[in-house]
């Protein structure tokens, strides 16, 4: 039994953590010597008053709350596309202020460089290409490089208006960038809803904590969208959220964001273009629209320019954007910058555009069109992670150590047929976090998707979506792959000082938490 846990006065904690095994991984809560990391001490003290049965009961309350709110996520791989809740684990993840500062600095730097790169490609001179930072053919063969967006300016160059940058921690606890999501990153609704749910289900654990709030996200997003409005739209631009409709896996989030911002949620058929101006059909007639926060993929956005069979989009929208009469966010064509092969060049792009060393490193990545790298990768296929370059959400990933011989062979054939379409990465020994499994806690691998807003200044929401691989040992933590999530607490600066030994020696004499009946 680890010393910390053996010495705990409370028997509940002992039973919650009974048989808890670090498994040789970097654990977010315990250090290598099994000591509780200081920023987790108040939380663990707060948990002391709960028996395992209490937690299980609260997990049920949580499930009922989420279901009644309609917070669901469609998993496409399971045949029909099954709507299910995206379970929030009851133990929050805590990031201390100094660690968060490091993350925030790294994200601001990265997104600044990515915005510069995209502007350079679409409305600039392609300087990074001419100067040999990134090969032109790599850009030209990226599925996300949309020539249709060439020459369309975006106010303030804020092309990645919402970026979701996935971070992981390795065996030493170093934060690494796993991938950039610059098209339509989803998940921010869970960040906000998880916080709300935590305060309802386990209000007492917030005691003695200075946690930075995330509930201003809607205001920050609206602010960023207002700032990228075309100059002619005046002080109060009209912003709308454009959704593909109720069948989209993130429809809940589209509704949520529109309501958080207090703007209209529209579908393509609600908008019409006249003389290169976009308007929304309302009961009072047409109303001009200045900024569209679209949650529709590029290919479906405008049937005149992209797929002519798309009924989700708005005919004439691209010309309207080009004429400067409407701003589309995120910008069209961002996919070239979150292409997983282009990802490998992002550290160089940071150096090139900003003259700075990258603050957050990439995961070691192999580019498979290079013969030497490819042959090394093919020799070590069973040790590496192979990813298709243009997919998001964990689709198509092959994890070498976990793959069958047949899967590895299929992977080899795919790589040899189209090496540009895949990258290989070293397996990152992802950090783990205690998560409630039945009536006890087990370590589960996690990642972190913080949300970054560009609109002139770059703002990082203090928190993010911590995703949990719910299956034991699984390294895929995408919400599309049936994972769970955690509320993510970023501590305010100086908050660590508030946390003192009081918490650790809490005697648990307070009444066993709040009454949960009010939830129903």
């Amino acid at each position: 039994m680890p010393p910390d846990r053996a010495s705990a006065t409370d028997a509940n904690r002992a039973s919650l953590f009974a048989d808890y095994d670090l498994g040789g991984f970097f654990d977010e809560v315990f250090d290598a010597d099994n000591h509780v990391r200081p920023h987790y001490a108040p939380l663990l003290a707060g948990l002391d008053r709960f028996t395992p049965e209490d937690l299980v009961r609260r997990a049920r309350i949580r499930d009922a709350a989420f279901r009644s709110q309609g917070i669901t996520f469609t998993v496409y791989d399971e045949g029909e596309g099954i709507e299910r809740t995206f379970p929030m684990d009851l133990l929050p993840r805590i990031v201390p202020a100094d660690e968060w500062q490091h993350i925030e600095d790294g994200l601001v730097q990265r997104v600044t460089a990515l915005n510069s790169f995209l502007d350079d490609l679409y409305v600039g001179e392609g300087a990074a290409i001419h100067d040999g930072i990134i090969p032109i053919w790599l850009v030209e063969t990226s599925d996300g490089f949309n020539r249709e967006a060439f020459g369309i300016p975006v106010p303030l160059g804020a092309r990645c208006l919402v970026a979701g940058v996935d971070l992981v921690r390795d065996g030493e606890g170093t934060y690494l960038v796993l991938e950039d999501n610059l098209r339509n990153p989803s998940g921010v609704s869970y960040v906000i809803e998880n916080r709300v749910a935590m305060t309802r289900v386990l209000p007492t654990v917030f005691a003695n904590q200075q946690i930075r709030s995330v509930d201003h996200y809607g205001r920050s997003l609206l602010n960023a969208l207002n700032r990228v409005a075309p100059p002619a739209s005046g002080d109060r631009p009209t912003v709308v959220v454009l959704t593909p409709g109720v069948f989209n896996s993130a429809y809940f989030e589209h509704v949520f964001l529109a309501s958080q911002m207090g703007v209209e949620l529209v579908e393509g058929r609600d908008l019409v273009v006249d003389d290169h101006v976009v308007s929304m059909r309302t009961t009072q007639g047409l109303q001009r629209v200045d900024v569209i926060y679209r949650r529709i993929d590029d290919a479906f956005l405008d049937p005149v320019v992209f797929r002519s069979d798309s009924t989700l989009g708005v005919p004439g929208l691209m010309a309207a954007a080009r004429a400067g009469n409407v701003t589309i966010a995120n910008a069209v064509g961002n996919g070239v910058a979150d292409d997983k092969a282009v990802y490998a060049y992002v550290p160089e792009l940071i150096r090139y555009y900003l003259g700075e060393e990258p603050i957050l490193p990439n995961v070691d990545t192999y580019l498979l069109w290079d013969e030497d790298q490819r042959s090394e990768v093919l020799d070590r296929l069973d040790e590496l992670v192979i990813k298709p370059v243009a997919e998001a959400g964990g689709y198509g990933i092959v994890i070498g150590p976990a793959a069958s011989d047949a899967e590895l062979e299929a992977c080899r054939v795919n790589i040899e047929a189209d090496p540009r379409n895949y990258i290989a990465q070293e397996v990152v020994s992802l950090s783990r976090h205690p998560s409630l499994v039945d009536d006890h806690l087990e370590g589960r691998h996690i990642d972190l998707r913080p949300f970054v807003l560009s609109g002139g200044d770059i703002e990082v929401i203090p928190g993010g979506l911590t995703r949990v691989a719910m299956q034991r040992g699984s390294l895929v933590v995408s919400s599309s792959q049936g994972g769970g999530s955690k509320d993510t607490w970023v501590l305010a600066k100086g908050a660590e000082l508030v946390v003192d030994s009081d918490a650790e020696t809490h005697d648990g004499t307070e009444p066993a938490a709040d009454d949960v009946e009010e939830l129903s």
Partner: protein
Amino acid sequence: MRLDIRYRTTFTYENLVRESQNELRACPRSDENQGLISYRLQTWPSSKVFAFTDYWGTRVDAFGIRLPHVSLEVVAESSVETFQRPLLTVAPHLETLRDPAFISAHHEYLQRSPHADWGRGIEAEARRQRELVGDDVVSLVLAVHRVTGARITYARGATEVGIEVEEVLSQGKGVCQDFAHLAVALCRSQGIPARYVSGYLFTRDDSVGADVTDGDVVEVQTHAWFEAAIPGFGWLALDPTNQKEVGVRHVKIGHGRDYDDVQPLRGIFCGSSSPTVEPRVEIRRVRTNASPVFDRHVRDPQMEHQQQQ
């Protein structure tokens, strides 16, 4: 040669349609082989035209008609002067195609594209030509040009846009777009960068491309040909449909990977009836010192926001 071109397309619908949105690529480009003198676009019903230059360097006119209408007529008039092209004076070895800088500069034109994809048939034909002509690029391009003409017979309406090039080759019939796509695919399959060109040809019959001797006005359709990149020279333009080098009677609108990048008119509308489409191109040769038929100067298309009456 000075040519005045009148591109006209009329859509007639059985029932009212509305919210039509369109992109037109009908304006001749200016480059080292031709100079645009004037260009003017009108639509009926009238519309506000937004003009821009696309990724491929082609002028695009975007316009929409929101209110209900039963017909849409688009007329684009241009005046252009075409120049004699330089003679080919190089004969680079096929090895020069492997130069990494050359490949990098022409990467987009070496890839498969939806209308210029190739399979075994095309690859075998291209290899056969390669074996016949030896190891210089120009000879191989000319052989591709010849074999395209030899393997396909021009047949108006023989194919629809979207047919696979392999199928064109096996059925042996096609229109000018098919000739161009097949030549492009044959070149690319051998590592020669090739691009599809959309344009106009001043001829009485675009299947033979004969010079016009009996008058100065012809009625044709938009035409298509191809260009291949020759190391140390530039783009060599050939018209495989009528087996001629591209010259002063060819007027280029633009180029791209295939038809989709330079489609003359694409659009969409709301309504239940399918239109009757009447495309027509009238080309008039303007004899020296004659004043142009359509006299109107074009401003920088990128900046242009012109309101048509």
